[in-house]
């Protein structure tokens, strides 16, 4: 059983700056962490490693600082970590990211039975990369997986949560699943794991190693362009009630509630 986990590095804080020219995020100088949801994806893989002796590869595209983040995944128990890093990849949108990741899988002959990714990343919040990656490789996909039920010879059973139902699906492998927080409780790294990871190496490849052409990569290869970034100021004129006026405010609120409660259908 071979598992591929897609993991993204995201900035740790919400104090992010934007490049005024390209409209993309300036990632330099920010503390980087693994996308929190991807930790749940990795944890699910680690559980399957324990129960089914799975081999885990973690794949990421990102700046060189991602190496530290990937090292942490080795410390947690991943067997192999691969970083795709090149200035040509900078500014990738979801199409260019998925393309680069899927090409790397082909070019590097990365083997997998199951691919696990997070439902979405906390920075871009698009939740598109996993699905696009899978479709570029013609893999079956189950999104919004809330529970991993079982692993059989050549298939998995998972529960997916959608608006109106919990659906249980049986999927022939290879396949990709994107997971919600509830699939697993991430473990903390241990000292022995950290020591052990020191002897392992994060493999790093650039565009040339992968034989990829610049036209398809990074900002150049991205169909979308950010044209404007702005602050929203949807402020309102607030009528404040406090102290001895409070009661008047409460009466005002009651009046509004009575007014609109009639318009309700249930």
């Amino acid at each position, binding site marked *: 059983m071979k598992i591929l986990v897609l993991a993204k590095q995201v900035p740790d804080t919400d104090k992010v700056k934007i490049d005024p020219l390209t409209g993309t995020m300036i990632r330099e100088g920010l503390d980087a962490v693994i996308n929190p949801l991807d930790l749940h994806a990795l944890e699910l893989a680690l559980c399957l490693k324990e129960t089914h002796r799975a081999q885990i590869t973690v794949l990421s595209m990102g700046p060189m600082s991602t190496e530290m983040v990937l090292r942490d995944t080795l410390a947690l128990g991943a067997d192999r970590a691969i970083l795709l890093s090149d200035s040509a990849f900078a500014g990738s*949108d979801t199409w260019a990211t998925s393309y680069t990741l899927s090409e790397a899988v082909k070019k590097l002959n990365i083997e997998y039975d199951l691919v696990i990714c997070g439902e979405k990343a906390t*920075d871009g919040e698009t939740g598109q990369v996993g699905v696009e990656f899978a479709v570029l490789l013609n893999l079956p996909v189950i999104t*919004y997986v809330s529970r991993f039920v079982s692993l059989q010879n050549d298939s998995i059973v998972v529960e997916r949560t959608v608006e109106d139902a919990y659906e249980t699906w049986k999927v022939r492998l290879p396949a990709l699943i994107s997971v919600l927080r509830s699939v697993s409780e991430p473990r903390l790294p241990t000292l022995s794991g950290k020591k052990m990871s020191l002897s392992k190496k994060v493999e790093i490849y650039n565009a040339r190693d992968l034989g990829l052409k610049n036209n398809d990569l990074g900002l150049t290869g991205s*169909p979308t362009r950010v044209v404007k970034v702005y602050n929203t100021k949807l402020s309102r004129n607030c*009528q404040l009630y406090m102290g001895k006026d409070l009661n008047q405010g*409460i009466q005002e*609120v*009651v009046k509004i*509630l009575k007014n609109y409660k009639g318009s309700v259908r249930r």
Partner: protein
Amino acid sequence: MIGVVNNQIDKNTLELLGKANQMAVKIQTQVCLFIIGSKELKVDHVKDYADLTVLMLSENFGRFSLYPFLINLEKAILKYRPSILLSPATTFGRTIMPALAARLRTGLTADCTDLDVDDKGNLLQTRPAIGGNVMATIITPNHRPQMATVRPRSFSVQPEKREGRVRIEEITELEDSCELIKIEKREPSAQIDQAQIVVSVGKGLRRKENTQIAEKLAQLVSGAVGATRSVVDAKWFSHDHQVGLSGKTVKPKVYIAAGISGAVQHIAGMQTSEIVIAINKDRYAPIFKVADIGLVADAYSTLEQIVKILEDESDA
């Protein structure tokens, strides 16, 4: 042509058709509704909001599974060639649209909260970015279709009617490596995006037990209870109740924010509500900047007073 894709005929579909209509008038093009789903779907009440409704129905399309839907939709899109393709940002839209974008080698903007077209026909796709701190407008200059998923409740339903033709496309049935083995209906418990009055609670309620007063108020006014992420993280409410960037967008007639600080990520999900009422004991809390009425007071006891007045009056 501007296309709208969905696997059901619901309010989201109508909202998107309304926006598609406005944009179609601006660039003088047609509106096409692509409906893919179960044989039971009836389009009579929606078809007149589009020039053309393309139906892809099958008894095997009761529940969404990616490839059967993808292959059929892709075929229809290559046939009708919309220059803009929209879908609601539901679990369906957020799965089918990236899959289509990958096959069509085009761009896709997730979770837009506003859309417009410029006179060159560029779709201006606006969404909150960077943790809700700013809004970003994104275009897809050289690839077609230009694709976007749109947060439910971003637009209102419009009355404009169109030609209303309907065409049925033949379905390609294919073997699916995904098999649905069980389905358990879920209480559509927290319909916060449907309610006309939303009573939302934040950490300022201090204890889980205290949130019962918000549920009581919501019940009295036939509303729903919303929550901040802090409160959801503390397991006071399930994620269905979360309002904001990583929760739902709501647009009720009345939004009550009780004990909520007003972080940008929360405001991203409620700022288009008609009337906003904030209750916070800190008169400098940011939530007051986006409120119409602010009560500087303890959240619990204020909600309690409001409930008491409403109850007394309904008894009388």
